[in-house]
């Protein structure tokens, strides 16, 4: 029932609601607009580590889901807490395909639930340009013995702008320190192709072809071909390097005409017309796990995979090649990649960085952790725990060399490494390469067209940097 005297006031709540709604929209808009910062650049970390908190603190990492992530969490909680008992280490993981997005969407929100993002070396440019990670140049000068490392390893996981392959620019800024070194290893069946690994790429292809012909049901080769992450792109880049090709000319930022030159075309031809026919039917979407599964099930004569992901191959529970580690090692061999016109191998692995959006206490703890982690004895312990260190003394230590049959492969590969571009446009460049190489490997494009398309599209991405409207298509 209504009372006449209130009729005149009926519109007031309605007006108030409208006003409140409008105010909320304006407030939200202002809040959303306020997030941007002009001319973002990486903020500087202090040269000396600030005073650390005595209160309980959780130091959070973000990485993708794979065995080294669990190894790091276990190792850090066992060892770092001896020095800092109030600290708990948490390594949060996401599926590999979401790794970049999981980190950079939080960077975009200017709020992170991690303190130490573990970035692929190629992500550094994007993070630095957007001011997402701390500039630790002064911190490194004060706290890290830079002479203890192969200069290129230190540069690859921290320097921006990118270093020339094999070198480090001592005047360039550093934004990270190595966490886990990695490269590809050639995994070969000693019982099928002999104890001596092929030395050249041509020999490797011939050995794989013969092995496939001699052993029905076993494919000659297994390697990454998927169009997610950087799978197919790393495969092509590896062959490109071995056949003397270049990914780009960093000084002139030129890709067109460099990537698809004669050496690049030859590499694509070898990959699609000589290597692909030796792979299993339907392997066009294989990545790390699928290649490991093929090796563990005895379905591949020669395979290529990241060293850090190869530990499971020696687990008898996951393998049909033997009931003990020794029995498996009697059939599997691990070697550095064969050379051809050059001996280049892909640089893998990741570095540690400090989120610009963490609290000061957590940033201080992150810096302390990084200093602790780079000590000689800790690097050796990390090697013994299954990690791949970067300090030269740790790489040459028995703790590392005896920890796995592929560790010597890594140590021997360090001087041969080459990385991709670490420019801010990396995510788009690698997507273009992945999709086109995947298309060529699966018959959706001819090798020549695929390579020319990569060069053309990547060049367009580099050339359109900074242009307005329609970017990203």
């Amino acid at each position, binding site marked *: 029932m209504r009372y006449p005297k209130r009729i005149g006031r009926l519109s007031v709540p309605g007006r108030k609601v409208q006003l409140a709604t409008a105010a909320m929209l304006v407030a939200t808009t202002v809040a959303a607009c306020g997030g941007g910062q002009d001319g973002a650049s990486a903020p500087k970390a202090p040269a000396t580590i600030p005073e650390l908190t005595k209160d309980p603190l959780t130091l959070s990492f973000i990485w993708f889901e794979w065995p080294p992530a669990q190894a790091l969490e276990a190792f850090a909680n066992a060892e770092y807490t001896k020095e800092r008992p109030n600290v708990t280490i948490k390594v949060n993981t996401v599926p590999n395909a979401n790794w970049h997005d999981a980190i950079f969407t939080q960077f975009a929100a200017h709020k992170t639930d991690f303190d130490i993002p573990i970035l692929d070396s190629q992500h550094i440019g994007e993070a630095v340009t957007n001011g997402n990670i701390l500039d630790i140049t002064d911190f490194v000068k004060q706290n890290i013995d830079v002479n203890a490392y192969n200069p290129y390893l230190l540069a690859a996981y921290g320097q921006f702008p990118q270093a020339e392959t094999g070198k480090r620019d001592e005047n360039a800024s550093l934004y990270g320190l190595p966490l886990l070194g990695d490269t590809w290893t050639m995994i070969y069946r000693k019982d099928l192709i002999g104890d001596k690994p092929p030395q050249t790429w041509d020999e490797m292809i011939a050995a794989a072809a013969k092995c496939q012909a001699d052993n029905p049901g076993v494919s000659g080769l297994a390697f990454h071909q998927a169009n997610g992450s950087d799978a197919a792109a790393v495969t092509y880049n590896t062959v490109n390097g071995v056949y003397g090709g270049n990914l780009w000319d960093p000084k002139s930022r030129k890709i067109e005409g460099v990537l698809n030159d004669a050496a690049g075309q030859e590499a694509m031809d070898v990959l699609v017309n000589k290597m692909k026919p030796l792979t299993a039917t*339907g392997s066009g979407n294989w990545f790390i796990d699928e290649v490991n599964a093929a090796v563990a099930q005895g379905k591949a004569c020669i395979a290529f995979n990241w060293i850090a992901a190869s530990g499971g191959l020696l687990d008898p529970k996951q393998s049909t090649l033997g009931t003990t580690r020794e029995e498996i090692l009697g059939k599997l061999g691990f070697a550095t990649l064969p050379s051809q016109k050059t001996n280049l191998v892909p640089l893998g692995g990741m570095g540690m960085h400090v989120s610009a959006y963490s609290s000061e206490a957590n940033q201080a703890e992150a810096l302390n952790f990084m200093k602790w982690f780079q000590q000689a004895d800790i690097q050796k312990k990390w090697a013994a725990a299954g990690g791949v260190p970067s300090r030269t003394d740790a790489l040459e230590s028995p703790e590392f060399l005896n920890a796995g049959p592929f560790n010597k492969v890594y140590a021997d590969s360090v001087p041969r490494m080459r990385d991709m571009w670490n420019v801010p446009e990396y995510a788009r460049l690698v997507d273009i390469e992945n*999709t086109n190489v995947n298309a060529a490997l699966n018959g959706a494009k001819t090798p020549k067209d695929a390579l020319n398309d990569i060069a053309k599209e990547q060049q367009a991405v580099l050339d359109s940097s900074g242009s307005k409207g329609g970017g990203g298509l």
Partner: protein
Amino acid sequence: MSDPVPLTTDHPGQVASATPPEPGWSRRLSDRWLTVAFISPALLLLLAMSVFPLLWALYLSFTDYSATRGGSAHFVWFENYTAILTSAQVHLRAFTTLIYVVGAVTLQTVLGFTIAYLISRRTHGRGLLTTLFLVPMMLSPVVVGLFWRFMLDAQFGVINSMLGSIGLGQVEWLTRQQTALISLIVVDTWQWTPFIMLIALAGLTAVPKYLYEAASIDRASEWFRFRTITLPLVWPLLLIAVLFRAIEAFRLFELVYILTSGGPGVSTETLSFHVYKVAFLGFNTGTASAYGILMVLIVIVLTQLYLRYLNKLKED
């Protein structure tokens, strides 16, 4: 504070008193205020979660804003829209999406209606059959994608194993241009045919029985009854189901992401998957916003045309 209002009167037959309520807080609780109070939470949620993001995306679509690069957004007016509408890459994804939507929705409609028709003719076990058929629809698309990925694996998948046992060779379901899109259509059909079936079943159950009885008396054939009674009465409901499915299929993302990642190459990249890449690989937020707005506009325009056709059908 006023006394509590008694729930009963001393005199049951007496009509409730028309005396105004006591002055105090209850005086403000008019019908109007109550309405506002009850609607506000939902309204605020709608404004915050739907209206504002849509308006904000509309604003961003006219700028060169990037969520990660920071800096203020500069107006580029219609440049993002022009670039999208003239991009060969977008045209390719639009064509892929069109093939997918037409293929999946047609297959689902035919199968869904057929299953519903067969179920509707049963007198026993209809409920159990309907429930069993609905199971795929209740699963998460990510889960569906993952187990179909295993089933369609060329090396160890159960599908190829079955084909092998009858002497057929291995099919590369997810890694060949000719089969990858078909695989997506098949998986989507497996999951969403029950939706069409459910709607069609509701329509079939609602057809008055006396029409069939009259047709039987006139000795009308089964086909004649289907063509002149069943189909015309179920058709409008079926078209609504088709509309829902077409909108859903138009924004397909999960299955592509899990099953093919858009491959081989970009041959199964749909518009939604492409928007995702534009938005999160390059973080071109302005372009991605314009892309999203255009997709919404396309759905709205097509839906309007479709609804007009549906209304005309009903009037006829």
